């Protein structure tokens, strides 16, 4: 099995978001491997451990992404690649870059997180699949291989769907797919020695101006906390009635 996993480094979910000068400040922020990508990496490594093969992880973005790649290597991926860019491409561009990388090899399985905790668009995985012309199932909660097909389950908010998909195919991982392992210290050290290839967009035959999205960020702001305060008036009975009505509206919106 040749497996490719798309990963990104994101804010630690414990961090508070600070907007400064029209963008989210990255000063003194701790970064982690995007939590959904951990499930993707774990699944890839489990498949490798069961059926053999090789797991490659790839990211697009700044130098600092290397750390997320090293985490994935410490979890058991075999090699990594970083396509260097300034981190400003949107899903459209990133998907084209990742697809170009994927085309350099032949992969039976492709995994990604179902979304990133920063961008949260959930687009990148499906877009890459579209670029590559392979089937995609998003937000899977179970994964098994049966011959040359993958059988996966996804949660449909109230019921589950089981799908059988021919390979190669791309799957995006939802929380609950598995229990991502801790990188052990010996594995963190081994990861230091695993190959990490650095590529430029040119190396992949891509021209940056063709990757720019059609959207522009107009403004970046922290949504004001809306606190509604209402003083209830009237007799105690009237106030109690008004409160009960209010609560009912809150619990059972019409």
């Amino acid at each position, binding site marked *: 099995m040749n497996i490719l996993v798309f990963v990104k480094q994101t804010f630690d979910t414990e961090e508070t978001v600070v907007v400064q000068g029209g963008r989210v400040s990255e000063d003194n922020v*701790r970064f982690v491997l995007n939590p959904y990508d951990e499930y993707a990496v774990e699944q890839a490594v489990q498949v490798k451990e069961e059926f053999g093969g090789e797991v490659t992880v790839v990211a697009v973005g700044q130098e600092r992404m290397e*750390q997320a790649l090293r*985490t994935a290597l410490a979890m058991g991926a075999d090699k990594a690649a970083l396509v260097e860019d300034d981190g400003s491409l949107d899903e459209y561009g990133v998907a084209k870059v990742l697809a170009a990388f994927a085309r350099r090899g032949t992969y039976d399985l492709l995994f990604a997180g179902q979304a990133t905790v920063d961008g949260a668009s959930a687009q990148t995985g499906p877009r890459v699949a579209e670029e590559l012309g392979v089937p995609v199932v998003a937000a899977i909660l179970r994964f098994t291989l049966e011959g040359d097909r993958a059988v996966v389950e996804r949660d449909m908010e109230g019921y589950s769907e089981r799908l059988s998909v021919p390979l190669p195919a791309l799957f995006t991982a939802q929380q609950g797919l598995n229990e991502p392992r*801790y*990188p052990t*210290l010996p594995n963190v050290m081994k990861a230091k020695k695993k190959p990490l290839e650095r590529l430029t967009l040119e190396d992949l035959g891509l021209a940056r101006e063709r990757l720019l999205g059609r959207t522009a960020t107009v403004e970046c702001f922290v949504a004001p906390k809306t606190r509604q305060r209402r003083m209830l008036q009237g007799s105690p009975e009237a106030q109690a009635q008004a409160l009960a009505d209010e609560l009912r509206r809150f619990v059972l919106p019409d």
Partner: protein
Amino acid sequence: MADQMWLEELRSGVRRICNSFPDSYWRELDAKREYPQAFVEALTKAGYLAALIPEEYGGSGLGVTEASVILEEIHRCGGNAAACHAQMYTMGVILRHGSEEQKRRYLPEIAKGNIRLQAFGVTEPTTGSDTTQLKTTAVRRGDRYVVNGQKVFISRAQYSDLMVLLVRTTPLAEVRKRTEGLSVLIVDLREAVGKGLTIRPIRTMINHATTELFFENLEVPVENRIGEEGQGFRYILDGMNAERILIAAECIGDGRWFVERATRYAKERVVFGRPIGQNQGVQFPIARAHVHVEAADLMRFRAAALYDAGKPCAAEANMAKLLAADASWEAANAALQTHGGFGFAEEFDIERKFRETRLYQVAPISTNLILSYVAEHVLGMPRSY
């Protein structure tokens, strides 16, 4: 100095484990004064406690710099490494002064976590900081030592398989210098308890598994002695620098945790129609604590770099410990004050960490003793004791 990205990877590996042990985990254990078994197991299984053991003995062969980052991160995440930090460095005395046979016998098993060597018996009730006066004796009888005496505040003795024990083998009256005549023995606690060793837990103001030990004709095989007879004090001393640096790192982790919690609370808590953190009277103590934590951190990395380069670092290691312990205590105080009444509520964890970080003013070495060291050995003033 080890490169920043690598240290950050280490931190993130440790943080992954710590994230599974939230504040509530530590809070509940604290209330029951229980040992953090699950946390220690997770950390052991992930190999972090074998960081300092050379690769040829099954560890990761890392330096004190990296080890200090591991312990710092545990404290930075709100946990406490005291339950297991000694598993990292107590083996140092075997590594540096043990025979090849002792190293082969113990180190690989310690690295795997099969043997816990995290008890270190030095302090005694009647002599305290004046270590060379200690009264516990080991008298040689054939191929055994017979140990008699008493130790106090010996941590983790109930959660350790082996203990490194400092005893007097030649009476004080018969040695040229008081630092001579002390020896280091490895006591197998699994065998010793009930056969000459009694362990009695001491309940303290923090959740710290510390105990009192009573020795009554405890027999220890001579082959369990580390290095030469009579040279034990020197062996213990040269492990102290590593310990000082590692403890400094724990303080720095605590300090950062306090500063972060205090800052967050100061921004969120609104009284008199404004966040309390808008008042300079609230800001300044937190800002000052932050400055001191960061300054202490520089001394810690400097000491660690010297240590890892095999250069003398006693002055730097001691100074790092003092600066870091003072900074974490200052940060603790600022955090408690910032939280007002809520700082005293167990649910906020400030009071727990406040109690915990207070320890470093006293143990493993008290602040005064560090100052005495600096005055005498760095500045050349007369010995004061």
